[in-house]
């Protein structure tokens, strides 16, 4: 036992009980600081139990701190693992959805597998994951007309509120595709949503084909009523 620390207390204390103390490098500074605090309790020999309480407080507090630190490290690790699994699964679902969307041959029947896969994603991970997956597919497959058209067809099944705000943004990005058939599918999606907040989008679509201009004008005229 390091008598140097306890010297003053032992000399002034009527309590013959010797406090066993295991000195460690982490607690050293804290203990030293505790015994050099100038309080009435520590100074009074009659209150010989107070140093003992202080040590217990410090070791308990320290133990709690260490536990908290350990818990937060475990929590951090769990969160990282959860995110890693989520990313892995969404990548997996993205691949699966792409293979479904590729099957779209502009017939209703060929869209069914994509719709099922989309519902599976929503059930498992929610709309947020779906938005991320569809946006990634949209960018990576921007040159695949049938995939973009299939995405538009799938999106129009939902109400705008369900896919707000990313749904409209996704359609907006598809509208910039130079293929006018792809634009027509995107406009059809807006047509189905029938939301006048999308009028500015419709009024600023660039079209070269007469049929597409007429189609956009029809949709605008209905929304403006």
């Amino acid at each position, binding site marked *: 036992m390091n008598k140097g620390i306890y010297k003053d207390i032992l000399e002034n204390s009527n309590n013959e009980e010797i406090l066993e103390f295991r000195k460690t490098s982490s607690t050293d500074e804290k203990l030293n600081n505790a015994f050099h605090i100038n309080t009435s309790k520590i100074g009074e020999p009659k209150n010989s139990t107070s140093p003992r309480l202080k040590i217990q407080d410090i070791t308990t507090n320290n133990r709690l701190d260490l536990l908290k630190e350990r818990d937060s490290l475990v929590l951090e690790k769990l969160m990282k693992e959860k995110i890693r699994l989520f990313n892995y699964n969404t990548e997996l679902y993205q691949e699966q959805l792409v293979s479904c969307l590729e099957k779209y041959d502009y017939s*209703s029947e060929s869209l*069914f597998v994509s719709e099922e896969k989309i519902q599976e994603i929503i059930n498992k991970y929610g709309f947020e994951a779906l938005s991320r997956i569809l946006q990634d597919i949209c960018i990576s497959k921007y040159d695949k007309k049938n995939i973009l058209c299939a995405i538009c067809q799938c999106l129009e*099944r939902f109400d705008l509120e369900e896919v707000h705000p990313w749904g409209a943004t996704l359609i907006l990005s598809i509208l910039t595709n130079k293929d006018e058939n792809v634009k027509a599918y995107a*406009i059809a999606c807006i047509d189905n949503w029938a939301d006048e907040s999308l009028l500015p989008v419709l009024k600023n679509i660039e079209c070269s084909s007469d*049929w597409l201009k*007429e*189609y956009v004008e029809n949709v605008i005229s209905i929304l403006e009523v």
Partner: protein
Amino acid sequence: MYYVRKLTKPFNFNKIQSTKSIEDIDSDVIKQELSTKENTLSFWKCENLQEITDTIKAIILSTSEISKSKFIIIDEEIIKEHQLEVNESAGKTGYKGFENLHIDICNLTYKKLGMILKTYKKVFEDVDRTHELQKDEIKDLIIEVIQHDLLDEDNLNDSLKKDILKLAEKNGLAI
């Protein structure tokens, strides 16, 4: 008598209408709008235009989704004029009791299909021979069918059934 068919894509109306010659129509339009099965094309009949709502309900409940719809209405005389064969056959629809509104135009050939496409182009010039319903209007019609207990779930397309269940739940309707 009139024969009614729903367009697969509303914008195909604009494509067909704006083309100068049907010979220049995209083949995808033909595939989408005139897709035959065993050389037949489905239509739904309507005795007079005042009763067209029932025909439209039968059509809506035979499709695969609730979406904005555009319909073409062809007079029986035009069908006879082109000597197209009509065969009455019960259709698959979720509109109970109206399956018999379905008919097939059958024994179709390349030539006859071309006649139908020409008919489409001509009919599209007449505003009274096309009918358009917004998605909300389609939903209202389906709700009417449910409220009158005329929904035949067993004859609904699976995909449409999901849409209808969602619609019914949203509107507090029991199916």
